[in-house]
Each structure stands twice: as C-alpha cells, then as structure tokens.
C-alpha cells in the first residue's frame, strides 16, 4: 500500500515513560538494514518527547551504515519520566509521548513507508517491566481500510476486564500527536451513554475504565468484562493499559487497540484462483 521510493519512514508514536518508570528504545538495526535499498548510507534519527504542545526533549542522532555494518549513536535512547505534580500518568492529564522519526540523509531510499516495527521497554528497579508496540503516526493501513469501509474511525479492545477481587483495572490512553484538538467518545459494552474525552493538540490523556463504570452507575465492588470502543471525527493514537485498580502506577501491560476492521470476510473466487496460479508460478 505504501510502496515507492521514500527518504523516510512514517514516524512512530510511543508513550513516554509514566512515573516511576524509565524508557529504553533500541532500533532493530538488522531489520532497518533489510528495509534499505543500499548497504551504505547515513540516517538521521530524531526523537521528540512532547507534552502539552511542547518539545520537552528533542534528540537528534545519526546512524551510519557502511557495507552492512552500523555505527553512530542513533540506535539507543534512554530517558526517565518527565511526569510531575502538574500532570502525567497519576492525574491522567497532559501525558507525554515519544515520537520517533527516521530519515535517510545519504544514498538510497526506503521502498516502503512503513519502517521496522519495534517495541519500547519501560522498566525500573522496583517495578514490573512492560513493553509498548509503537503506532504509526499516520497512514495506518487498517485505519485507511476501516474509514473506506465504514466512513468512521473506530478503535477498541474486546477483552477489557475490570475486577476488584484481582485488583484489575484498565485505562484507555489517548494520544493526540496532531496540531488540532480532538474529541473522542468511549463506549462500553452494555452501556448506551458514551463518555467524551477531549485531548489538546500534541498531548495525551488517560482515563480508567473503573472511573467510567462508576460514572455510569456500575457497582464499584463488582467486575465487568466486555468490549470498549473509542471513536471520533479524527483518528487518535490509542493504547490500553492493564494496571492495578488500587494503584494505577503499577502497570502490568500496555497494548495497542484493535480497530473495528473494514477488511471483508469473503473474496471473489476468481481472485483466489488467480492468486493460486501466481503463487504456483512463483514457486
């Protein structure tokens, strides 16, 4: 879908480390090399940690590929949390996020706009390690297919579990990396009324499902399991965090959502036959 000759790959969005975690990101260099049209070139890696419209950290570094061998300081990136009393994970407002850009400054090109996928790891000496599978800032293929099919952007998570007996809660984390404010609606299975969440430009917000359930009249002592949908006029980058109900800073996992898919369940038999013939000829 994104084939061509490109000097960059689509920027990736991850969550900045919530307090008290630190973040480590290492680019998968072998994977990156396999995406390039050449075996020697230079890349510029730019990382922005953005909070409330401000570039709090702007790191620019270089990677040099020389006959298949990498050098340079652009591979690794490590930061501590920038949450403070004014905002962050604890309050759910003004969440910071990390935006990673990779561009070619030398020879060659990327045949595909979608670059190497990689995780970011969140860790700490007294905390459980968890990971974040980064999201494309734009041109996300499932989103494009979804909007083509349904004329709506709908993200979601079908297996959302809130259970006081196992101290389980889940938060919807909405990152708006764009220049205009966005408003999303959060729908919970079994409840008619959605919850609205406005996210300022270049910022993020977190809202716990337990607090949404409480506002909808669900008993705080009973569990709930079901589908969550997040929808709005504009796409946002959405993550879902499983964490302690009593202490949201104890994060178990941070996962991307599952779009309400626009892919079809069936395909024409004639297309399937052509594809089989093509596969057989290529084999």
């Amino acid at each position, binding site marked *: 879908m994104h084939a061509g000759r490109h000097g960059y790959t689509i920027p990736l969005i991850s969550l900045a480390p919530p307090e008290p975690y630190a973040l480590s990101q290492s680019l*998968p260099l072998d994977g990156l090399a396999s995406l390039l049209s050449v075996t020697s070139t230079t890349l510029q890696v730019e990382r922005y940690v953005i909070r409330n419209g401000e570039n709090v950290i702007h790191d620019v570094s270089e990677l040099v590929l020389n006959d298949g061998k990498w050098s340079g300081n652009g591979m690794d990136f490590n930061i501590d949390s920038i949450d403070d009393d004014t905002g962050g994970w604890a309050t759910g407002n003004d969440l910071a996020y990390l935006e990673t850009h990779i561009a070619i400054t030398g020879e060659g090109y990327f045949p595909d706009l979608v670059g190497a996928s990689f995780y970011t790891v969140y860790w700490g000496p007294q905390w459980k390690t968890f990971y974040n599978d980064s999201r494309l800032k734009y041109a996300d293929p499932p989103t494009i297919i979804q909007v083509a099919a349904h004329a*709506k952007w709908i993200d979601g998570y079908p297996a959302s579990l809130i259970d006081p007996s196992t101290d389980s809660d889940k938060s919807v984390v909405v990152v708006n990396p764009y220049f205009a404010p966005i408003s999303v609606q959060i729908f919970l299975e079994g409840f008619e009324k959605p919850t609205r969440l406005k996210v300022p430009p270049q910022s993020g917000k977190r809202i716990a499902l337990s607090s949404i359930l409480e506002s909808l009249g669900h008993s705080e002592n009973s569990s709930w399991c079901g589908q969550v949908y997040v929808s709005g006029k504009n796409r946002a980058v959405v993550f879902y965090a499983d964490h302690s109900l009593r202490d949201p800073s104890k994060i178990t*996992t941070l996962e991307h959502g599952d779009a*309400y898919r626009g892919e079809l369940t069936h395909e024409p038999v004639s297309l399937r036959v052509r594809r089989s013939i093509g596969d057989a000829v290529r084999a």
Partner: protein
Amino acid sequence: MSENLQENDGTLKQMDEVLCFSRLISYETFRNFVWANPRATFEEACKGTGVGSKCTACLLNAQEFYLECQKNRPDGFKGMQESNLPSFRFGKADLYRLIDKFSPKAPFLLKGVIPTFGGENIKTTLRIANSVFDPLGPKSPTFRLEIECRDHDGRILDEHDLVLPPYERFDLNVSDQLTGGAEGILTGSCRVKMSALKPGYRGSIRPHFTVETPCGATALHSQGGGKYKPNPMITRMTNAEESQCISLVNCEDVRADVSIRIHQKGKTIEAIEHSAAPFAASMVEIGTPAVRQACKDGAVFVELNSTARVRPHMVVRYGTPPRLSLDHM
C-alpha cells in the same frame, strides 16, 4: 515551507487549502473532480487527481473529504469540461475487477494461536467477541468458530465447534485442564479457526485472551501462522523480583529446534537451545545472571530462530503471587 504554495496549475494556495502536500493538490481540485465525476470511486478520484500517490499520508483525510464531497454535491454541477477530464483507459486491472464483481465469493479462513497458562492462581480465558459498534449497526456476519485446546505436550484436550452471531461473545476457560509445564506454570495452547457464514466485514472478531492472577490481569490478541524467525525483542531486567521467560507454541506437526540468542550491541550475552515437540507449549527462562548483569548497562535484544513455525511471547512475572504479562514477539 512557505505559507503560499503553488499548485500544479499555477494558482497559489494557502497551506490549509492543500489536501496533498506531496503533489500540492488542493481540496478544491479534488472536490471539483469528485463533483464532476459522481460515479468515480475514491481510488479513481485519487488516480485522476494524483492525490495520495506519493507518500499516502493524506489518504485518510482524502477519504473523509471524498465522502463529504459525495454527500454535498450540488445538483447540476458542471465543473470541469469533459475535454479536461483525464480519460479512463480500460485495462487488464479493470477487466479483472469486472470479473471479480460477478464472481461467487468464498470466505477467508482466519486462524489464530494463543498460548495458555494455568496452575495455582493463574487462569487463562479465551475471549471472542462479535461486537457491534452501535452508531454503525451490525456490519459483521455470523462466524463459525472451530477451537482446539492442547496441553503442553501437544495432545488435544478439548474441541469446540460453534457459531457466533453479531452482538454475542464466547468466553472459554482454557486453563482448567492443563497438566504439565515448566518454570512453575502449566502451559498449553489454543488454535482458533474462523470463517464467516455470509459476506460482511471482520469487525471485532479477532480472538483475544486474558490471563488473570490474584494480582492483576493482562490481555492480548491471538496471532496466526507462526514464524521461523520472529522479530527481535528488546527487554531489560533490573528487578530481582522479576523473571522473564519466552513462551513457545510449536505451530507444526514436527519437532521445532529453537535457538535463542540474547545480545547487546552485537555481542552475544547468552545462547539457549530448546527443543519443542509437535504442537507443544513450553517456557524458557531468559533471566540468567549474565543477562541481568548486561541489563545494568542497557537494554538487550532477544532473537529466535526455529526449524519449525513457532508462536513466541515474552512473559514477565513480578512478585508472588505474580503479576503476569505477555507480549507477542
């Protein structure tokens, strides 16, 4: 970038009037094309104007705008003259599209594999939801589900064959029957095959699973196929109370010999060899003293190579009873 951009026909546009920055095509040009060609599909409108053909970043905006233009087209719009319109040539792709339009349809067979975990204080539940987004209404059809649960040795424990209409969900405890495992956890796997009973959209049908302990829950989606060489995974271990393992499900009916290499800045810290029986589910501890020492200096990469297709997950356990998480590699 300057505030005024020159469109391809020489007229100047403000930045906020530009739809496609790579080709410098304005919203007005795209709108005029859609209005002048009311039967043009979105793809044809993009092809006719050049929108989205370079970096594709504008495609989502273009898609929304296309739908708006279709809705707001004024009656009797004349727009561009016929002679100015790009001509459509009927080629091979158009012929195939015509044949496909009238061809009977066959369902895709969607497959997913999940690892399952059990034992004291650990419960895995397979969750499949044919959910409906109410503002949209039901867009997904009824699906047929075929579910097969296996133990750590790959033996079949349980099978289910059912249909799941829109609005319904299916939750299945897949840990109660598990008997064997490693690293203190019972392991197994589930395979799910799904096919729609009539044409529609996939919606939210992808299988997910939750793993619960007394200290929390984690959820993850299934993945199909399995790989011989999964993507390398970054990790870091600085907490003495935490253990990290790789859960491996052998997706094939042959033995899988798996090589696990943990490295940092190109230097191998640990190399682990593991063998998995056909369809078996196992766990391999990677938090060796050497790996923990290396993590003090920075993150490490975990890489797998396998002789058969495997589905690996990174499993992190913290504390007792554990908070447990899984992430696909």
